[in-house]
C-alpha cells in the first residue's frame, strides 16, 4: 500500500471555494468601508487572499498526501474561522481608537490562525503514524491528572484577566487552561466510559431498588466534582457549566440511560439554587440576565451595550464595518456574537447559528460512522462540547440564560481557544479517516 497515494478531495475543494470568495469579499469590504472609497490596492486584499490561499493549500496538501477523512467538516470550520478573522480585522482599529486595547489584534489573530491551521494539519497528518488512537485511551489517567493539574496550576500561578478569566503565562505566551482541559476531560471520559461501558449499562440491585452502578461512577464523579470545584473557585463559571454538560451528555451517549440525565438535571438545579443563595456574584449575573438596566454603567454595562448593538442590527444588519460594536467592552471575546448581530443582522446571526449546528451535526455523523467505541465517544464528546460552548455563550449574550464567560469557538479573539479548537477539528478529521462502519 502506498501511504501517500493522492486522492482528490473535490467536495472539500468546491465548498472551500465558497468560503474563499466570502473571505475575499469580506476583507475587501472592511478595508473599503474604512477608507470610504471604492478604490483598492493589492495591499488591501493581501490578507483576504492569503487566508483564502491558506485554506485551499490545506485542501491540496490533504489531497496530495492521500488523506481520506471527511470532506465537509473542514469547510464549515474554515467558514467560521474566516468569519472570525474578518470580524477581528474589522474590530481591531475601532478598539485601538477608543483605547480598549493597546495593540493591534488583527496581526496577532492572523498569527494564531496560522498556528492553529498548521497545528490542525499536523494533528491530521501525524495522528496515524504516531498511533494516537491507541495511546490516547491507554493513558487515560494522565488526561485526568492533566485536567485537574491545569486548573490547579491556574489557581496557583494564574493571572487574572478581565475579572474572572484565568491564564497561565508561559514565556511570552498566555494560555487559557480551561480551553485545553476541556479536551483532556473529553478524552479521559471517552476512554473510561468506553472501558466500563458494559458495566455502566447494568443496574445495581440494592434490595428491591434498581440503582445505577454506583461503584463505577465514583471515580468519575470525584474527578468531575474536583474539576468543577476548581473552576468555581477560580470564578470561571462558563467552563464549569461546560464541564457539567460534557459529563452528562457523554454519560448518556455511553449508556443510553435517562436516569443519569434526570439525576444530573436535578443536581444541577440544586447547584444553581445553592450558588444563587451563597454567591453574590451569581445574583449580579441573574440581575444582568433579567434586566441589565438595573446598573447600566456598572455590572450591566456590557449586556446593555450588547442589547443596543443587537437592536441596531435589525433584520439585515448595518453592513460590515458600518456599525459600532466597539461600544461593547470585550466585544472581541465574549461578546463577538453581538458584533455579528449588529453588522450582519438577524439573518447573519441565524446563519452563524446554522453553521455551528451543521458543524456539530457533521461531527456526530462522523462519530456514528466510527467503528471503535473510544473514537465514537471522543468525537461525539468533542462535538457536543463545542456545541454546548456555542450555546452557553450565544445564550448568554442574547440573554436567554445568565451570561457565563467563555469563547465563541473559532471566532472569538484568543490564541488558546482558536488553536485548541482547530486541533479538535484535526483530531475529528483524523478519526473520520479511520475504518468506518458500512
Amino acid at each position, binding site marked *: 500500500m502506498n501511504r501517500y497515494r493522492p486522492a482528490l478531495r473535490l467536495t472539500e475543494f468546491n465548498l472551500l471555494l465558497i468560503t474563499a470568495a466570502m473571505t475575499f469579499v469580506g476583507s475587501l469590504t472592511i478595508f473599503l468601508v474604512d477608507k470610504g472609497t471604492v478604490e483598492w490596492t493589492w495591499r488591501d486584499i493581501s490578507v483576504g487572499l492569503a487566508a483564502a490561499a491558506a485554506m485551499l493549500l490545506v485542501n491540496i496538501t490533504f489531497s496530495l498526501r492521500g488523506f481520506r477523512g471527511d470532506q465537509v467538516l473542514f469547510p464549515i470550520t474554515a467558514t467560521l474561522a474566516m468569519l472570525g478573522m474578518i470580524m477581528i480585522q474589522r474590530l481591531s482599529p475601532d478598539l485601538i481608537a477608543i483605547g480598549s486595547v493597546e495593540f493591534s489584534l488583527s496581526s496577532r489573530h492572523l498569527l494564531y490562525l496560522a498556528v492553529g491551521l498548521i497545528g490542525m494539519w499536523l494533528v491530521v497528518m501525524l495522528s496515524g503514524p504516531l498511533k494516537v488512537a491507541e495511546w490516547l485511551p491507554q493513558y487515560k489517567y494522565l488526561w485526568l491528572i492533566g485536567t485537574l493539574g491545569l486548573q490547579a496550576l491556574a489557581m496557583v500561578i494564574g493571572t487574572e484577566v478581565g475579572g474572572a478569566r484565568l491564564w497561565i503565562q508561559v514565556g511570552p505566551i498566555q494560555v487559557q487552561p480551561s480551553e485545553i482541559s476541556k479536551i483532556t476531560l473529553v478524552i479521559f471520559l471517552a476512554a473510561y466510559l468506553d472501558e466500563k461501558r458494559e458495566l455502566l449499562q447494568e443496574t445495581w440491585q440494592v434490595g428491591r431498588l434498581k440503582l445505577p452502578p454506583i461503584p463505577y461512577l465514583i471515580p468519575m464523579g470525584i474527578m468531575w466534582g474536583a474539576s468543577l470545584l476548581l473552576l468555581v473557585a477560580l470564578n470561571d463559571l462558563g467552563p464549569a457549566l461546560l464541564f457539567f454538560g460534557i459529563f452528562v451528555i457523554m454519560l448518556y451517549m455511553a449508556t*443510553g440511560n435517562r436516569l443519569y440525565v434526570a439525576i444530573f438535571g436535578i443536581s444541577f438545579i440544586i447547584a444553581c439554587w445553592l450558588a444563587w443563595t451563597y454567591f453574590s456574584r451569581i445574583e449580579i449575573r441573574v440581575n444582568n440576565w433579567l434586566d441589565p438596566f438595573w446598573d447600566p454603567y456598572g455590572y450591566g454595562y456590557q449586556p446593555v451595550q450588547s*442589547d443596543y448593538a443587537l437592536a441596531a442590527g435589525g433584520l439585515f444588519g448595518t453592513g460590515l464595518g458600518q456599525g459600532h460594536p466597539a461600544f461593547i467592552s470585550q466585544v472581541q471575546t465574549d461578546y463577538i456574537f453581538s458584533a455579528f448581530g449588529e453588522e450582519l443582522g438577524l439573518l447573519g*446571526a*441565524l446563519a452563524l447559528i446554522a453553521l455551528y449546528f451543521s458543524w456539530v451535526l457533521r461531527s456526530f455523523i462522523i462519530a456514528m460512522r466510527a467503528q471503535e467505541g473510544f473514537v465514537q465517544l471522543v468525537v461525539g464528546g468533542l462535538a457536543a462540547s463545542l456545541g454546548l460552548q456555542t450555546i452557553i455563550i450565544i445564550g448568554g449574550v*442574547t440573554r436567554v440564560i445568565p451570561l457565563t464567560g467563555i469563547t465563541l469557538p473559532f471566532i472569538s479573539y484568543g490564541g488558546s481557544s482558536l488553536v485548541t479548537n482547530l486541533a479538535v477539528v484535526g483530531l475529528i478529521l483524523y478519526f473520520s479517516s479511520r475504518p468506518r462502519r458500512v
Partner: protein
Amino acid sequence: MNNVIRSIFLLAAIGLIGFGLFIGDDLSDARWLALLGGAFLCLLIATRFEIPASTPTFNRGLIRTTMLLASIFIVLSAQLIRIQVIRQRQMYYRTGTAPDGETISNPRLYRQQLTVQRGSILDRNGVVLAETTKEDDVYYRNWPVASTWPITGYYSPNAYGMTGIEATFEEYLSGEASTNAIEQTVNELLNRDLVGADVHLTIDADMQTLAYNAMGNNRGAIVLLEIETGETLVLASKPTVNPNTLYVIDDSAEAEAYWDTIANDEVSKSFVTRATMGLYTPGSTFKTVSAAIAINEGYATPESVYEDNGEITIDGRVLVEQNRPNETQTKWTLREAIMWSLNVVMAQVGLQIGADTYWDYGPKLGYGAEIPYDVPVYESQLANSRSFLDSLNAVADTGFGQGEIQMTPLHLAMVASMWAKGGEMMKPILVREVTADDGTVLHKASSSAFKQGVKSGTADEVAGMMVDVIESGSAQHGQAAGYTIGGKTGTAELGDGTTNSLFIGFIGESKPKYAIAVVLESDPDISAVATGRDILVAAMQR
C-alpha cells in the same frame, strides 16, 4: 398516538413562541423567558420521535443529543428574532438610569447625528427655528431664534441628551418614522443617509420673540392660545438653555463649561421650562375658578351678596381684607368680589363649595389630570392630597387661590380660554403637522375638546366678570381701545419674601379670540397686566 402527542407539543411550542413574539410583544423579559422555557420543554417532547430498536445505544444517544441541541438553537433564534426585529425599536431607543442618577441611552443615537439629515423645526409661517446643514461631510444643527429655545429644546445625543420638541419628535426628526417600511429597508441596505421629517409648530415666531423680549430680565412664562382651536401661538419661557452651545460633535470644553454653569445654577434652574414645567401658586387668578364652581353648582350668582367688613374669623384664624376699594362698604356681590379681588368674600365662597365639591371639580378643570401636549407638561394640583382640604382654613385659602394649589402657565392659559369659550377647555396644540421631505403629511393635529369643565352659561358669567375687572375693576390699566379684554390678576408670596405676579385674560372684538397667561417671578420690574395686554393687542393686530 405518539405522533399525535408530538404534533400537539410541536403546535404548543410554536404557539408559545408565536404568542410571545407577536401578541405579547410588550411582555417583560422575565415572562418572555418563561414562555421560551415552556416552548423549549414542548420542543423536547415534540422531537422525541421513536428510534428503531435496532439502533445502537450510542447512535440513539447522539440522535437525542442532536434534538436537544436543535431545540436550544431554535430557542436562541426566537430570542434573536425578538431582540432584532419584534422589539428592535424599543431596545434601540431604550434609556435607563443608573443608581447614581446618570442616564444611559444608545450611543449610536449620537453617531446618527452624523449620518442623518435631521428634519427642521418651523413656526406657523415657515420661519426656521431649527435646521441641520452639511458642511464638509459633517451635519451641523442650528437654532437661530432664541425665544423659541424653550420649545425646540436642545439636541445633544452624544453628551447631554435631548429635550423639548427635539426629544418628543425624535423619531420623526431623525427620519426613523418618516420613511415607509420598504423605503427604509432599501435605504438601510444601501446605507444611505436618512432624511428626517420637518416639524411645523403653531407658534408665531414674531409673537414669541415679542413676548420673550417683553419679559425683560424677569424669570417666568407667557402663554398665548387661540381660543377657537387651542393652538399655541406663544410659549415663552425664561430663562432658557442655548441649544447651539450644547450641540457637540467632538468633545467641547465650551459646552462642558456651559453645562456645568446651568446645571449648578439653583436659582435660575434653566432646565425647567417654566411655561409647561413651572408649577406656580395661581393666587387671585384662581378666584375665577372658585366663582365658576359656585355658580355652576347653584350656590351663588354674580349678584349674590356677601358680608366683608375688613376681616373674617375662620376656625379661630383672623383673615384680614386688604383689597376693598371702599372701606365703608360691607356688603359685596360676587361680581364686585372678583372685580376688586376680595379675599374675605372668596374665602366664604370657598367654604360654600367645600372640600368634596372642589375635589370633584379638580379633574374636570385639568387639576391632577395629564394634559396632552407635544412637549412634557407637569400636572397641576388643587392640593398635595385630599386630606389637606379637611381643614376649613385650607378650603377658605383655596377659595382665593392660596393653599396648596399649583398650576403651570399653560394650564392657566387654558383656564382663561375655557371661560371665554363657554366652558370648553380645548386640547392645547403645539405641533400643527409633520411633513416628510417629499411633502407627505405624517402627522396632523386636529382641534378637539379636552374637558367641558362647567356649563356654558356659567363660563359666560365668569367671562363677563373678567371683562368687568378690566373695564371698571382692579385692573383698569389692562384696557386697550377698540378691543374687549377680560382678565384677572394674581399675586403669590414666595417663601423668600418675594412675590410672583400673575395675569390671565382674553381679548376679542365681537367674540374672544386669544387667551393669555402671564407669570413673572420674584418681584418683577414690569406689570403682568400691562405685559399681557400688549401681547394680546399685538396678536389682534397681526
